[in-house]
């Protein structure tokens, strides 16, 4: 079972666990509001990786000496932690990849090329990240499949009214659990049920949801779930593809090489069992250890606590921006914090997002300005770019206040 989290965490102490957030630039603290992009790392993750490299580093799955056996245990231990964290039925259902992008591509290529025929339909949504669009568009070129997109409502939710018509005759449903632009949290279980009813393979891009709330892949019941380590306090360079045992057994390997084989002869090869079958080459060993430590850290705080903390902060941010700027600020997506995470894409007084983020950087407020790798969604919003402020467990009201205050500085410069 998961280690028990405290009832009400000490958020101030949690913030102090993140060395980058203790730094100052030009004598002022860093206001990090870009966690939807990538998250900061707690001391415990940094220490786990450093001490593994200092004391425990060795190859995995290859050598008989004790140091190597212990390294293999550390790597597999991380797999078990991740499995428990997302409530996977068994650790073998967790495949380590480089990031969510690689996991999504792996399924599109390996599953898609095996199962999809010209004319087959794949259903995505209008709020997907490029990582869940382009791999399928590549199959449009390679196989001749058809893509369909679930539309959005005016307040940025999936418009599910026409879902069964869209799914009619489709082979795949692949949707994000949470939008990285709008913050919208999608009803995954309902989507999976609809996909199942239409005999679709169902994949969930959980890149934005896993870091911020409880994930139960068994309750979701999808075929595949993809996410990245770096957005959940872990290092960059490691991600996860969860697949049901049934699907992973059937899935052909993606990359070929060492570690993924059982036997190789001049006339062919046989695959290693799942999950090694999908982990060709020397994997991200140190990063896996770091991801395991990140999971430990998140569990010690408690995912329900994190979600509650972020809901409160999101409410505070929306209310503060509105109170100060009224109609001069546009916050994309729904106002209902039950239905959204702490991702706020905003437009402010006709000031270009690039200029806004430049001015905010003056007060060390770190936000993303751009299209957020979701250009089809941006076109729908009628914006080339937005400023996106995103929240995590280490943020507090002072960060939101700095954002609100910083916007005023932009008004001054641009005389608006």
């Amino acid at each position: 079972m998961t280690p028990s989290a405290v009832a009400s965490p000490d958020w101030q102490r949690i913030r102090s666990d993140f060395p980058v957030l203790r730094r100052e630039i030009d004598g002022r603290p860093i206001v990090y509001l870009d966690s939807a992009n990538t998250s900061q790392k707690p001391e415990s993750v940094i220490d786990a990786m450093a001490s593994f490299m200092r004391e425990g580093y060795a190859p995995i799955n290859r050598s008989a000496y004790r140091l190597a056996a212990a390294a293999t245990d550390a790597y597999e231990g991380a797999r078990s932690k991740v499995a428990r964290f997302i409530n996977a039925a068994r650790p073998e259902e967790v495949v380590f990849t480089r990031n969510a992008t690689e996991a999504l591509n792996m399924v599109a290529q390996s599953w898609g090329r095996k199962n999809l025929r010209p004319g087959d339909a794949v259903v995505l949504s209008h709020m997907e990240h490029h990582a869940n669009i382009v791999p399928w568009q590549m199959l449009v070129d390679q196989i001749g499949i058809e893509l369909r997109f679930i539309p959005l409502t005016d307040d940025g939710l999936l418009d599910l009214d026409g879902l069964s018509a869209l799914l009619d005759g489709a082979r795949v449903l692949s949707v994000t659990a949470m939008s990285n632009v709008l913050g919208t949290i999608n009803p995954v279980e309902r989507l999976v049920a609809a996909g199942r009813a239409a005999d679709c393979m169902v994949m969930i891009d959980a890149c934005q949801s896993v870091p911020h709330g409880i994930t139960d892949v068994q309750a979701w019941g999808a075929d595949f779930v993809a996410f990245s380590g770096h957005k959940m306090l872990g290092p960059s360079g490691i991600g996860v593809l969860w697949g049901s045992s049934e699907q992973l057994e059937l899935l052909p390997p993606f990359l070929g090489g060492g570690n993924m084989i059982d036997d190789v002869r001049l006339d062919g090869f046989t695959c290693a069992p799942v999950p090694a079958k999908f982990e060709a080459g020397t994997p991200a060993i140190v990063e896996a250890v770091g991801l395991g430590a990140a999971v430990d850290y998140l569990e010690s705080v408690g995912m329900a606590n994190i979600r509650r903390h972020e809901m409160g902060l999101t409410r505070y941010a929306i209310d503060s921006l509105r109170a100060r700027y009224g109609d001069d600020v546009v916050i994309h997506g729904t106002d209902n914090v039950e239905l959204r995470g702490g991702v706020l894409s905003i437009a402010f007084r006709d000031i270009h997002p690039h200029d806004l983020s430049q001015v905010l950087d003056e007060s060390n407020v770190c936000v993303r300005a751009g299209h957020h790798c979701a250009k089809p969604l941006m076109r729908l919003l009628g914006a080339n770019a937005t400023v996106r402020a995103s929240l995590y467990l280490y943020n507090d009201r002072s960060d939101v206040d700095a954002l609100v205050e910083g916007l005023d500085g932009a008004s001054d410069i641009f005389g608006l």
Partner: protein
Amino acid sequence: MPGLEDLYREIILDHYKNPRNRGELPEPAISVEGHNPLCGDEITLYLDVADDVVRDVKVSGQGCSISQSSASMMTQAVIGRSVTEVRAVIRRFKSMMAIEEDGLEATDAEISLGDLEALQGVVKFPVRIKCATLSWNTLIQALDEAG
């Protein structure tokens, strides 16, 4: 850290708020689209060249203060000049943006950039160099198409 006043100079904000030569040109003027993949900005540049002279340039589209003011000042700097002179202005501007390119000629240093000198501060904000050069790269493409 360099101050924002180095970036957002008065002239720049003026060209941003009142862009010169905005709009479109009818065919047979050449039109070329330019994108900044980093921030999603998109512009279209229209170029009218005849007898080796840049007779008119117009720019439409969206962008930040740096990309829009740079485009506005660029049009003023190139309209009426010979294609050879325009290419020299481009080289001079790019070298001000710290972009190393082959073919910089000794005489380029003597070219005055006028208002465009105000964009010098952009070099201190490396991520914004792409904004400042968007319209220039689009102009190069258009000139190449014009032959």
